[in-house]
């Protein structure tokens, strides 16, 4: 016997794919206004400075690791 609960479930199941292709892209945050604004600000002129600040410690640590490689190596 199919009751109202079953009808609601069917409607929800049918509506789910529609919601994914219809409403979600406009509101979901990869494309939302907040996300777009944040990404726009990341790619401004100071992106290079920020990247250099982020990567600098790793470059130094990589160089240290390279230097340590010679410990105990026979000539």
């Amino acid at each position: 016997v199919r009751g109202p609960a079953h009808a609601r479930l069917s409607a929800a199941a049918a509506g789910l794919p529609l919601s994914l292709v219809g409403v979600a892209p406009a509101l979901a945050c990869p494309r939302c206004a907040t996300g777009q604004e944040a990404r726009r600000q990341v790619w401004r002129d100071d992106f290079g400075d920020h990247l250099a600040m982020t990567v600098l410690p790793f470059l130094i640590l990589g160089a240290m690791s390279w230097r340590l490689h010679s410990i105990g190596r026979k000539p």
Partner: protein
Amino acid sequence: VRATHQGALVSAGVLLGCGLGGFFDGILLHQILQWHNMLSSLRPPLDLVDMKFNMLWDGLFHAFTWLMVCLGLWRLWVAGERADVPWSARTFTGALLLGWGLFNLVEGIIDHQLLGIHHVHPGQGELLWDLGFLGLGALQSVTGGLLIRSGRADVVPPGSIGRAPDGRGSLAAGRSGR
């Protein structure tokens, strides 16, 4: 065969320790405790745009820590194939600890003290938190260095531990090979 090229294992361990230390910092201090973000002193995350801005830079920071772990795994694999590299738990553990400590020291000096792009725990007493972070890094580095030094006694190459001299069965004796 005496394997003495300890540096190959140390180099791999330092890269891995640095990467894992970076992940520890990012996961615990950036995400779980939310004490700071990568650029949170330049752009305090007070609204959603600034929060997402910092989130993206945290992501780039994590991308570099991931790269360090990948490099460390590659170097560890290469070291494991060499007969002149001593396969020592003390050396490797020490190198991991040294890498983590060096990460805290270098990141702390550059990002916290010189550039000031973020602090460990911003606000009242932030200098003490930053100095504590540096102190922890120094302690880890010294402990790691001591472990590596004690690992000099280990001279058994990869693949030999747990094997009898003829290459078969198990070897119950110690692994120092002296």
